[in-house]
Each structure stands twice: as structure tokens, then as C-alpha cells.
């Protein structure tokens, strides 16, 4: 580069000096040309050097720019690594939180299952006394009729020996009747034990043709005797109104049994509370009067509707307020004092009726007093 810049000047200077020495005449004659050429070479030199300088400066600028860019890139790279670390950290944190939440959720689900199971067991506990009573009665009949039949057989032998055909026939008729009674009461006890087992067992969830009237009647007795055994002062008039036109319908019997039992237990609770309340409000003499003005009554009725079956459970108890009606099917909502109710009964019943059976569970205040719950099941 420098060669290109200085070469013309050097060449022109040498030629001009040589010309001055060797051909002085020629030089003197053309001196102005030599001068001009020298001048031109100097201008050339300056121009080249200037452009050189300019190029160098631009290159420098470029280098600095590149250096800056490099620095920025490096900084970005560092930041990127930092960010990635941060992201990894956060991700780990979130994953951990998510796992914790999942753990909590599964624990909650397990607890819920346990609660439902304990609710089932609690309602079974309420039934225990009723079940014992309900089994004791048929067993007594089985024992008694068996004993009598043994005695009757001895009598039968005697009469046969006497040849008393009239008496023989009467006794055999009695024997037949007794055996039928034994079968009947044996089956009754069997049914109660089965119902109890079904009630405590986790539901198999299979629907089977079920006699709704028999189921309602069975749970009515169980609920009544259960409460009666726990609270001696409790008493209520039970009314039943079963529609015989209902044929067997497909339901999960233990689930619907659970619903009926729950509604009945609530009804009995409501009437006994009302009775207690009235007894408290009335002076002692009044309440001891022969005719108490209030008769706790629980009615269970069934009805065949178009493509549906309706089970109604009414009481003349203390009733519920409009505000309570709104919340009554919510889990853990209870109007009972603490320790008396889990608040799961009605929400469970609601699930069973609506979700598992595609039916409806309705509640309404009776005109005057008490509450009616209506279970509507599709046939």
C-alpha cells in the first residue's frame, strides 16, 4: 500500500533529479512539467495515504463494533445460561408443588372415601339395635314354632295310635302351618342379615330388579326400632301407603336402601326434636295430660307414575327454613348439633339418586308443618 503511495513520488523524483544532472537542457526546458508531475505524485501520495487512513479508521470502527457485538453476545449467553438455570429451578419448584398437590388431592380423596365408609358404618351403627330387635323377633318365632311342632308330633303319634283321624288331620294342618311360619320367619331374619351386609358393604353398583315396597318397609322397621332402642322415650306413628301396582324396578338395592334409611332417620329425628321442644315449652302438668296434642308421625308412600316410581317420606316434625332448603344437599351441611350428624347423608343420597339412578330428589316444606322428601326413580 505504502509502495503504491510512495512509488510515483520516488520514481518522479529520481527521474527529475537524473534529468537535472544528465540532460540539464532538456530538464530546464521541461522543468515546469517535471514540477507538475512531482506535484501530482505528491497529491497522489496524499490521496492514497488519506484513503489509507480512512480505510484503516473504518476497519477500526468495524473491529470495535464487532468487539462490542461479541461482548453483547457473550453477555447474552451468560444471561441465557442464568435464565436457563432459573427456569430449571422454577420448573423443579412447580413440579414439586404439583406433586405435593397431587399427593394432597389423593389424600383428600382417600379421606373422602373413608368418610363415606364411616358414614355408612355410622348409619349401620344406628341400625344395630334395630337389627338385633328385628332378628330377635323372627328367631323367637322360629324357635317357638319348632318347639311346638316337636310337641305336636308326639301328640300326632298318640292320636294316630288312637286312630282319631279328625284330630290327626287337625294336627298335621297345624304342623304344616308351623313349618310355613318357620320358613317365613327364617327368611325374614335372612333378609335382615342380608340387608345389613349389603348396607355395610361397598356398593357393587349393579342394578337388579328390586321390590321397592318391600325395601321401603324393611328399612322403615329397621330405622324405627334402631331409634327406639337408643331412645326409650321416642315413639312415632308410622304410616305406610304402598302402591301395589309397582312391579320390580332396576336399582342398586343397597344404595336406594341407604337413601330411604337416611331420609327416614332424618324424619324420625325431626319429629322427636319437635316433641322434645313442645315438652319443654309446655308446663309439666300440661304435657302429662292424657291426650298430647302432638302425635309424631312419619309417612312413607310409594306411587307408580308414568314411567317413574315415586317414594315419598313425610314427617310432621319441626320443618326446615327456606335458607336451609338451599344448602341441605351440600356435603357437610347439617342442621343437627355437632356430633349428631356428619352432614354427608343427604349429599350422598342426592348423588345416589341423581347420578347413579338418573332420578330426582326433591324437598318441600309441608303446608302447616314438617317436611316431605320425594325420590323419583325412572323405571
Amino acid at each position, binding site marked *: 500500500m505504502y509502495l503504491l503511495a510512495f512509488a510515483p513520488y520516488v520514481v518522479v523524483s529520481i527521474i527529475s533529479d537524473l534529468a537535472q544532472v544528465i540532460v540539464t537542457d532538456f530538464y530546464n526546458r521541461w522543468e515546469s512539467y517535471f514540477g507538475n508531475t512531482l506535484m501530482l505524485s505528491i497529491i497522489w501520495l496524499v490521496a492514497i495515504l488519506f484513503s489509507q487512513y480512512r480505510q484503516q479508521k473504518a476497519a477500526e470502527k468495524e473491529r470495535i463494533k464487532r468487539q462490542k457485538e461479541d461482548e453483547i453476545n457473550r453477555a447474552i449467553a451468560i444471561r441465557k445460561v442464568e435464565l436457563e438455570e432459573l427456569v430449571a429451578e422454577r420448573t423443579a419448584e412447580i413440579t414439586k408443588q404439583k406433586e405435593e398437590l397431587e399427593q394432597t388431592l389423593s389424600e383428600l380423596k382417600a379421606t373422602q372415601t373413608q368418610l363415606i365408609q364411616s358414614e355408612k358404618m355410622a348409619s349401620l351403627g344406628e341400625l344395630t339395635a334395630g337389627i338385633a330387635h328385628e332378628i330377635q323377633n323372627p328367631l323367637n318365632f322360629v324357635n317357638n314354632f319348632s318347639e311346638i311342632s316337636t310337641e305336636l308330633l308326639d301328640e300326632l303319634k298318640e292320636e294316630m295310635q288312637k286312630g282319631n283321624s279328625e284330630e290327626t288331620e287337625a294336627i298335621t294342618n297345624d304342623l304344616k302351618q308351623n313349618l310355613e311360619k318357620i320358613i317365613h320367619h327364617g327368611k325374614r331374619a335372612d333378609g335382615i342379615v342380608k340387608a345389613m351386609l349389603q348396607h355395610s358393604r361397598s356398593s357393587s353398583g349393579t342394578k337388579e330388579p328390586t321390590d321397592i315396597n318391600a325395601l321401603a318397609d324393611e328399612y322403615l322397621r329397621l330405622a324405627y326400632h334402631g331409634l327406639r332402642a337408643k331412645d326409650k322415650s321416642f*315413639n312415632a306413628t308410622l304410616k305406610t301407603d304402598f302402591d301395589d301396582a309397582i312391579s320390580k324396578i332396576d336399582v342398586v338395592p343397597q344404595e336406594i336402601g341407604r337413601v330411604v334409611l337416611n331420609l327416614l332417620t332424618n324424619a324420625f329425628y325431626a319429629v322427636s326434636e319437635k316433641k322434645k321442644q313442645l315438652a319443654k315449652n309446655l308446663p309439666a302438668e300440661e304435657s302429662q295430660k292424657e291426650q298430647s296434642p302432638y302425635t309424631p308421625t312419619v309417612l312413607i308412600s310409594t306411587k307408580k307414575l308414568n314411567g317413574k316410581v315415586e317414594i315419598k317420606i313425610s314427617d310432621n316434625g319441626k320443618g326446615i327454613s327456606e335458607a336451609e332448603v338451599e344448602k341441605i344437599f351440600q356435603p357437610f351441611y347439617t342442621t343437627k348439633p355437632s356430633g349428631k350428624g356428619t352432614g354427608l347423608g343427604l349429599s350422598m343420597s342426592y348423588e345416589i339418586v341423581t347420578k347413579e339412578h338418573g332420578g330426582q330428589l326433591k324437598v318441600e316444606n309441608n303446608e302447616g308443618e314438617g317436611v316431605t322428601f320425594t325420590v323419583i326413580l325412572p323405571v
Partner: protein
Amino acid sequence: MKAKVLHLLSFCRFKNRKDMNILVVDDEKDIQPLFEQRFRKEIKNGEINFVFAYSGEEALECLQDYKHEAVLILSDINMPGMSGFELLDKIKQKNHKPPPVVMMITAYGDDENYKQAMQLGADDFLTKPVDFADLKEKIKNING
């Protein structure tokens, strides 16, 4: 309703005033064939006449219409509607003369039930399952 009452009345009628009339009150309907067979001989010989009522209310109606005839009343305690205790209380307050002997029969033979029965004036307290040999003995004593 009217038909039911008529049925009840015919049903409540004691056959023979000379017999010892026993009113059995229990919501279990099979109590009737049970007693009838347990006391087969006594019924056949005309010593005892049984009448059955399936609720406290029915029992009261029986007693109202044929007051002095029941000598012995055997009543269950746990019945839907009117309980055996209420029935006992009402019978004892009516002051029949001579007062009928009232024996309470229950599946719950606990102290509380026993005390309440005695307090209300029960003459005896039996627990289920009924010991019929024992019951026969007690009935003989009343007769004697």
C-alpha cells in the same frame, strides 16, 4: 273405617265369659298362632280364651267395649304408634274393677324398661323369648 271397627268388634269378642280371658297385644301378627298352639290344650279344654290386638289402640278399643272381661293383659312394649307403656298407663288409670293383671313383654329386658313398667303399675315383666312353661305357671297362679 266403619268396616274396620266392625271387624275389630267381632274380633275382640270373648267367646265365653266363664273362661279366663287373656288379651295379648303385639304388633307381630304371628303371635296369635304361636299362643294358640302353645296353649292348645288349655284352649281346647276351655280353660283359657285368647283375644289378640295388634296395637295399643286396638287393645284399648277391645277393652272399652268389653271392659271387665279381660283378666290378664299381656302386652309388648315396642309397638308402632301407642307403645306398651302408654297402653299400660291408660289401663291402670281407668280403674277397672277388679283391675286386670298386666304383664309387659319386651325384647329389651334392661333396667330402664323394667323400672318404667313397674312405675306405671305393671304386675309382671317378661322378656322375649317368652318362657311359656313359666308363663303357664304364672297364669295358674292368677287363676288360683
